[in-house]
């Protein structure tokens, strides 16, 4: 056997991410169009590693102001007070409110940082040509894709708290600068996950098996 694990790329075939059709590009061509759905075809997502790194670094940069700057400002007759995301979690902690407090802690603080670390780990292992833990790495990628959207929770909390609590002159709540950076982290990490091509995880193993097979 000359080929250990047959991949589409080794056979010069491209599969369409839109409709799933397998097709062959013109001789020598790296790119083509799907004959069924007209989608653009490449062997691997274009500049996947560079683009994922770019989004990820941007997300990591925004992560700092997102956590340090306040996300909501509450103005009452007594003055105004600003809360960061972490302070919001603490404020929510009460005998009845603790489950929601945990959800916010999880969605707003754990998920964004875990996502940045997980994608960073995937990028580094792919670039080092790792052939180990492929099953775990693809599972990690799917987890990142699945739970990433939940970080948006705090953006919605901010939006609807501010929309409802407009009891001038008694009390009003308005969004603060941190909310923008927080939303940016969510969007940038989602774009990073989308730019990453999971097939890269397996490519190093395929090459090695061809060599040693």
């Amino acid at each position, binding site marked *: 056997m000359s080929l250990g694990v047959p991949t*589409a790329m080794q056979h010069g075939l491209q599969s369409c991410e839109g409709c799933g059709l397998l097709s062959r590009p013109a001789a020598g061509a790296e790119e083509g169009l799907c004959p069924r759905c007209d989608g653009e075809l490449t062997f691997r997502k274009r500049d996947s590693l560079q683009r994922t790194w770019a989004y990820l670094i941007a997300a990591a940069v925004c992560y700092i102001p997102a956590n340090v700057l306040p996300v909501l400002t509450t103005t009452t007759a007594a003055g105004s007070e600003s809360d960061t995301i972490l302070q919001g979690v603490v404020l929510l902690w009460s005998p009845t409110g603790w489950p929601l407090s945990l959800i916010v802690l999880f969605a707003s603080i754990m998920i964004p940082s875990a996502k940045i670390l997980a994608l960073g780990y995937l990028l580094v292992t792919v670039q080092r040509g790792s052939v180990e833990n492929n099953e775990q790495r693809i599972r990690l990628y799917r987890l990142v894709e699945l739970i990433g959207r939940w970080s948006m929770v705090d953006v*919605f909390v901010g939006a609807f708290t501010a*929309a409802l609590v407009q009891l001038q002159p008694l009390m009003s709540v308005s969004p603060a600068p941190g909310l923008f950076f927080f939303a940016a982290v969510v969007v940038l990490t989602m774009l990073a996950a989308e730019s990453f091509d999971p097939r890269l995880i397996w490519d190093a193993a395929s090459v090695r098996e061809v060599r040693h097979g």
Partner: protein
Amino acid sequence: MNARSSAEGHNQPVADRSLIACLHCDLLQRLPELAPGASARCPRCNKELWRHREDSLNRTLALSLAAVVLYVIANAAPMLSLNAVGHHASTTVFGGALELWRDGREIVAGLVLWTAVVAPGLQIALMLAVVLGAHRDPVPRWVGTLLRHHPTARTWSMIEVMLVGVLVALIKIADYATVIPGRALFALGTLVFVFAGIQATFDARDVWERVEWAARPQPSAAADRLTEATS
């Protein structure tokens, strides 16, 4: 009569239509014939390759119509109202985005509008159009064009996330004011389940198999040497 042919950049499809590559690991494999309800997974990375849904089009159509009704209620009715010291205030989904805009957070307002109103609306509209179009024979090309963009709308449609956000906001405000959940909140809660139902009944492969192609496949040319390579 197609304007474009494979000579102008369209790939040549493989002759054996059951041959596919896993989108998560690129493993080349043959998709088995599946009985309705059965599913196939990639042997290398365990990605679900296809789940053959039963009576996919009719069920998805019914759920999509329900989604339209719920979506209209969710966006027209008030979602939360508040009573505190003689004040009364209420907000809709759109109101949440509007308030962010007024406070000078235009970009965040745009994001909320996109994820809570526009993307879910697109998701429903695209699905409804696809299912209606797929009832025709042959399935017209525009169905494929719409179906190709459906996953993007689904990625950014965050009704379920918004619902949790609204609940957190509700609990927070309940400390110092009486909060009354509005009709839209119940519509949104139901919509989350309807979306899950659509995902569980819609069979994209079933539509792709019958859609009219962008380029006519040339049956003869270079078919492939692949069949021998993998068998």
